[in-house]
């Protein structure tokens, strides 16, 4: 009688115990627990990042058919072809313009971030708004706006001619200058925000301590502020450099086909020339080089523990 009662109670309790049991298993196996928590993210990345990347990798070893279709005939030709001076030059130009854009962003962004972080609280939001406002407008519209400014009959040239500073319009659009300007304009907020975050965290009594020990303003910056805000600077530089080096819209619109960057090359291979295997190979080479450069850059900032 007592045994039957006990069995009945066990049956009643069985249901909630199932979830408890799962919980128990997960608690005992932290690795399993971790994979359960991470599974949505892993699934997403596998499906939309790793899988397409594998396709691109496979394409890069394939051959182009007569009509631009993929022929699954293994070849290294796509990689070999990249080391043509024509392509190398394009690649170096991309790197050069991106480095230039990154350095200019840093030179504008660091002082701006500094002022923003040191401004009284009520000003800080207004300044932050100034940084964010461009994001509310479409990137294409903003790029067209720059075109409107730089054209031969654009605002700047017209104004300068009207003032009598110049006789003939200065060609500005469709030059490397225009592309760099577009890159700086487009990616400046990505430089400002991480630097702002690290300056905002910076303890300014350290600057006072350095001053107290005989450091003038420049040395306070060089010896204290700069090294301690380096993580933000590195993050900002990477956030500007990587999209710059792969850009094709900015260089297309502001370079007007005269400034060809690696992004345009890839775009052409996929859309115009329909040589998907070569386009894939360039993409992967670009990715590999940017990855290596970024790792080296990261390392340089990790000399010392902070």
């Amino acid at each position, binding site marked *: 009688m007592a045994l039957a009662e006990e069995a009945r109670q066990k049956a009643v309790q069985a249901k909630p115990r199932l979830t408890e049991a799962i919980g128990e298993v997960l608690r005992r196996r932290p690795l399993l627990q971790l994979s359960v928590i991470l599974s949505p993210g892993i699934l997403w990345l596998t499906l939309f990042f790793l899988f397409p990347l594998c396709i691109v990798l496979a394409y890069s070893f394939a051959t182009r058919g007569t009509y631009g279709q993929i022929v699954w005939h293994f070849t290294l030709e796509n990689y070999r072809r990249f080391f043509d001076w024509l392509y190398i030059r394009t690649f170096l130009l991309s790197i050069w313009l991106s480095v230039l854009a990154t350095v200019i962003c840093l030179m504008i962004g660091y002082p701006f971030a500094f002022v923003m972080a040191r401004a009284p609280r009520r000003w800080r939001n207004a300044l932050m708004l100034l940084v964010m406002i461009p994001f509310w407008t479409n990137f294409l519209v903003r790029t067209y706006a720059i075109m409107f400014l730089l054209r031969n009959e654009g605002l700047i040239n017209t104004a300068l001619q009207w003032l009598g500073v110049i006789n003939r319009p200065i060609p500005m659009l469709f030059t490397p200058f225009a592309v760099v300007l577009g890159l700086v304009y487009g990616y400046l907020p990505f430089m400002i925000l991480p630097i702002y975050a690290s300056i905002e965290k910076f*303890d300014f009594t350290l600057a*006072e*301590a*350095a001053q107290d020990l005989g450091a003038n303003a420049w040395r306070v910056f060089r010896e*204290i502020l700069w090294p*301690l805000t380096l993580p933000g600077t590195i993050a900002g530089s990477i956030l500007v450099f990587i999209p710059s080096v792969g850009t094709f819209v900015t260089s297309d619109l502001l370079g007007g086909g005269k400034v060809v960057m690696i992004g345009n090359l890839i775009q052409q291979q996929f859309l115009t020339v329909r040589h998907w295997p070569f386009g894939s190979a360039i993409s992967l080479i670009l990715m590999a080089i940017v990855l290596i450069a970024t790792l080296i850059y990261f390392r340089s900032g990790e000399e010392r*523990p902070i």
Partner: protein
Amino acid sequence: MERPVDVELCDVTKVFDQHVKAVDHVSLQIYQGEFFSLLGPSGCGKTTTLRMIAGFELPTSGDILIEGRVVGNTPPFKRNVNTVFQNYALFPHMTVEENVAFGLRMKGVPRDEIRQRVREALHLVRLNGFENRYPRQLSGGQQQRVALARALVNRPRVLLLDEPLGALDLKLRKDMQLELKRLQETVGITFLYVTHDQEEALTMSDRIAVMNAGRVLQVGTPLEIYERPANRFVADFIGESNFLEGQVTRIERDTATVVISDRFPVLAQTHHGIQPGQRVTVAIRPEKIRLCIPTSDSQNEAGALTGTVQDIVYIGTDTHYLVRIDDHTAIRVRVQNAQNRLDSPDSIRRGTWVVLRWAPEAARLLTE
């Protein structure tokens, strides 16, 4: 005693945001080689005073002189003073050695000399062997020593210390107090020490300036400050005091009789300018009062007060009594536990009728 003055403040006032008066007409002279403390509750202006001497703030009016020269708006990095900050402000990306060497490096001292002086400075604060550690790998006390070494290595004229022991626990703080005093005597540099801890100030200082609400209320040696407080704030802030308000009825040589609550005459040492009939406050420290069981003639004894014990608190070294004299007056008395209180239980309990006595010179008349 004519000693050279290292730091002098002449009528210095600092006003923040046009109306917040942080420092209010402060004049001070700090002598060469002395351990001088600015003592006061938080917000009394002591840190602002220190920051003005360091050069982080400029006075709204008045002059600051270091080594006899008006510093005006000389920037901090050109002043011959160094600061030990409250939170140490060690450079987190530099090792102990690099932190200590920083000031010398900024002044362009040759490499070999830097090495030598850094080693000496670390030896002075007993931190040899920690050269290559980073600040976050050190305990609070060790970080404190690095901050000291980093300032002292420059051999400044004056070392400014802004509550440097505030972040340490009690035991460590006591050790560091003695250590700081030892250091100051070893190097012979003038120390200007800011603290809100009266015990700390009394322990270490040669002289103390007590500040409140931006003003300096009294300057003197620890003994003078404690034994002869200039006013009620000082008497209350430094140590503990009983305040009895009353009227002077008689002055006989240097002893005044003051009647409190219109009934009880007590005795206190008088000083210049006290007149019979004047309303005064008698300040008397709890440890200077003797507490006895009354005898038959206690009632008539001059200057003795009688009352009932209202409260007894045992705190280890001492026992505190609260004795009620009348409805308006209760007096705190502190008796040192000279005997083992377990072996000789106190005959005085709550409700016991007791008599309080003190020597007239132990009580002080305050006129404000």
